[in-house]
Structures are given as C-alpha cells and as structure tokens.
C-alpha cells in the first residue's frame, strides 16, 4: 500500500475534530479534499499518525453573505461548488477568474478552499487572491478563536500561522465595492498545472476615474503569496495611463526574488510577473469602466 499506516478518525463535529487535534497536535492532520495531503501520503512525504477526516461537517460548508457586504466561505467549500455559484462569481470576479486555473475538474470536485489555504502552496492561486482581496481568516482551537488578515496567515513556504491545535474555520471576503474591477491572470505550462507566475489585481475608481484603492498580489514568485500593492500604490489619485501601469510593472519586477524551477528561470518568472501585473491592472480597469 502506498501510504504509511495511520489511524483514521471521522470527526463527528468541529468540536470533536478540535479535541482530536488538541490531543494529537502535529501528529494529527485534518483530511479535507485530500488533493494535496493524499499525494503527500502516497509519496510518504507525510506520515501522520492520525488522520482526522473533516468531510461532511456541515458547520464547515456554510457559504453565505454577512452584513456589511461580506461573503463567508466555510473551509470545506469545494472549488466546484463555487464554480457553480453564479452569485458568488459575480460578487467576487477574482474568484471567478482564478478557479478554472486550479488543477482539473476531477480535482476541483474534491479540493476545498480551507485545504488550499492551509496548505499554503505559494504557487497556488487562492492565497494570492485572498491577499489581494484583504480576506480575513477565522481559526479555532479548543482554547478559543481568533481572526487574522490573509497577509498575516501565510508565513512561509507551505507554512501558515495556524498552531498545531488550530483549524481554519472560514474565510471572509469583502464583496467588490462599486466602481471596482478585478482580474486574475496566470501562466502555466499546461492547463491545470501550477502557475509559473500569477497575478491578482483589484482596483477602485472615483467618479472622476481616478484610482482610490488598488491591490495587487502575485503567486508563484516567492515563498508566500507576494503582496505587491505597495508598487501599485503609484496609481492612487491617478488615471491609470499605460505609462504609469508599465512603471508599476517594472517596480513589481524589482521587488520580487523568484527562485525559479525546472520550467522557468528566475528571470523568466520575473518577466512574467511584470507582464501579468500590467495586463491584470489594465483588465481590472477595463472592467470598472464596463461595470459603470
């Protein structure tokens, strides 16, 4: 058999899952969609003593609108459920753009938002999307609950701020403000592969078409999703001219240190990051104009 032996426990509630995690700590792993964890078990890269299956816990499947124009996605929300949720896709165009880039339909039927974010693969689309959207993560242990910004959730390569006894419960996204546009773009070798580089952009304009807020985050070019909103801030107070956007893209390229991989040299990744940033910003701007 491929995986090393483990004890399998199907959690009956979030409280049950948390008590098991408190008991086993790092020796226990939550099993969500299994689309990253089971490959790791099959390769024996991961050898947890206990698997705590959280599938079927209705408390983690909620997907609803909160007051104040926010949207809550339970950790167990599967990609495919989101792809079929037209309301959500209209409210969060970044998700609509990003979801089809994640793996293949068969994997999207199982993979979950919470598993994706907890796995914290820097090449993954969703961590960058949540950073760009200023999402908030709600995490819980037997000891209590806390909430943190997406930007503080991702702390390193495949590493989050989650403590050994904590679970990601849900992620809250602000729905897109009026006169805003968003866009996610990426380059991958083949459909469904992890991105060589990807970029999420959200931009908000005032009535005079001047930028009041801009968010830019990249995937695949660092150990965590890279928040490049600082570079993009040059657009604030301005109308997004081609010249200005190109200057932002150059600044983005200067600010990153991609490691490269078998498919792309660091220079190529840096090149992609610049091109994608400029294209995503332009497309986001077009979408504001379109929505207005």
């Amino acid at each position, binding site marked *: 058999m*491929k995986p090393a*032996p483990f004890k*399998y426990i*199907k959690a009956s509630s979030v409280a049950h899952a948390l008590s098991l995690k408190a008991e086993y700590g790092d020796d226990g792993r939550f099993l969500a969609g299994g*689309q990253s964890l089971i490959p790791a078990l099959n390769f024996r890269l991961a050898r947890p003593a206990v698997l705590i299956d959280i599938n079927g816990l209705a408390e983690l499947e909620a997907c609803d609108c909160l007051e104040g124009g926010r949207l809550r996605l339970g950790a167990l929300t599967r990609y495919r459920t989101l792809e079929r949720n037209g309301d959500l896709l209209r409210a969060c165009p970044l998700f609509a753009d990003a979801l089809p880039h994640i*793996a*293949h*339909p*068969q994997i999207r039927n199982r993979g979950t938002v919470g598993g994706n974010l907890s796995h914290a693969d820097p090449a993954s689309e969703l961590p960058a999307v949540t950073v760009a959207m200023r999402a908030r993560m709600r995490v819980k242990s037997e000891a209590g609950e806390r909430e943190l910004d997406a930007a503080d959730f991702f702390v390193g390569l495949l590493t989050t701020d989650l403590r050994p006894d904590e679970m990601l419960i849900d992620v809250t996204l602000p729905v897109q403000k009026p006169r805003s546009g968003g866009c996610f773009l990426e380059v991958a070798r083949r459909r469904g592969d992890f991105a060589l580089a990807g970029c999420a952009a959200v931009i908000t304009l005032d009535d005079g078409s001047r930028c009041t807020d801009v968010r830019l985050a990249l995937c695949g070019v660092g150990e965590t999703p890279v928040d490049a909103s600082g570079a993009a801030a040059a657009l604030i107070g301005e109308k997004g001219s081609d010249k200005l956007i190109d200057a932002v893209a150059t600044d983005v390229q200067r600010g990153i240190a991609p490691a490269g991989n078998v498919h792309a040299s660091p220079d190529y990744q840096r090149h992609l990051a610049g091109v994608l940033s400029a294209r995503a910003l332009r497309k986001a701007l077009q979408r504001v104009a379109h929505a207005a």
Partner: protein
Amino acid sequence: MQPDRHEVQVSVNGSAYRREVESRMLLSDFLRHELLLAGTHVGCEHGVCGACTVLLDGEPIRSCLMLAVQANGHELSTIEGLAQDTGELHPIQQAMHAHHGLQCGYCTPGILMTMMAFLRENPAPSEQEVREALSGNLCRCTGYQNIVDAMLVAAKAMRASVP
C-alpha cells in the same frame, strides 16, 4: 501498530459491496484488489494522469486521491458499468471504437468516466470545451484528436437517445 481497519459499504454500478479494509487503502486499490473491478486503471497515484477517474455520487474524482474508508455510504460508478449486460456498448464507447479514440487503452476508462459526467452537464459542447474537459486526463498514444472527434460524435448520439 495494529492495522487500523474499518468497514466500508459502497454501491458500485448499482451493486452493494461490504468489505473490511485498512484505513490507508486507496479507493483505486480497493476497487481493483478488493472488488476485483480492475477496469479502473492506476498510472501515477498522485492525481496527475487521470487514469483512475471514477464517479463518486455522479461526480468525477481521482480514486487514487481518496481513501476507501471515505467512500463508505457513497455510490460509485466505474467503467464496468457502462456497457449493457448483453455486451452492447454505450454510445460513448461505440464512438471511441468507431473513431479510433484508443490505442493501448490505458487512459480510456478514466477518459470515459470523465466524459460521462461532462456530457451529462454539457450535452452539446464545442470542440474547445471537450478539450478543456479532457485536460485532466493524459493519453500517451492517440494525440487526443481522435478522442475529441469521438466525444463530439458521442455527444450527438447521446442527445439523440434522450427522449
């Protein structure tokens, strides 16, 4: 460590099965070695090739990325369920045969299970949509073109057979 064993009850292609297996047994191995339904193939065992695709409650999934215990209480469909008991092929199988959509056939079960679900959801796809739907299934023999042709013909045949 004592093997961690669990009872698994599943329905596969409409037949009920009950087995006791170790928790680390993958669903793909369960189908092949426990239920002796070896039509589901295994290529990479890490989710990349698509050969092991089966339907779980009607949705295509990688059976190498799910534990057999997780399928407890669920309904599965595999390649063995496509043809009639009389041996008459399903239109999707007939189309693959007629259009030379397979050579070695290793990828075929996964492709057909993927396309069964896809054509149910999208009965009149464009060629581009078929290609997109096939993107999670690798074929080392055909170069895909004949599979795409077969699926467009199968879609038509399946539309015609729906009253």
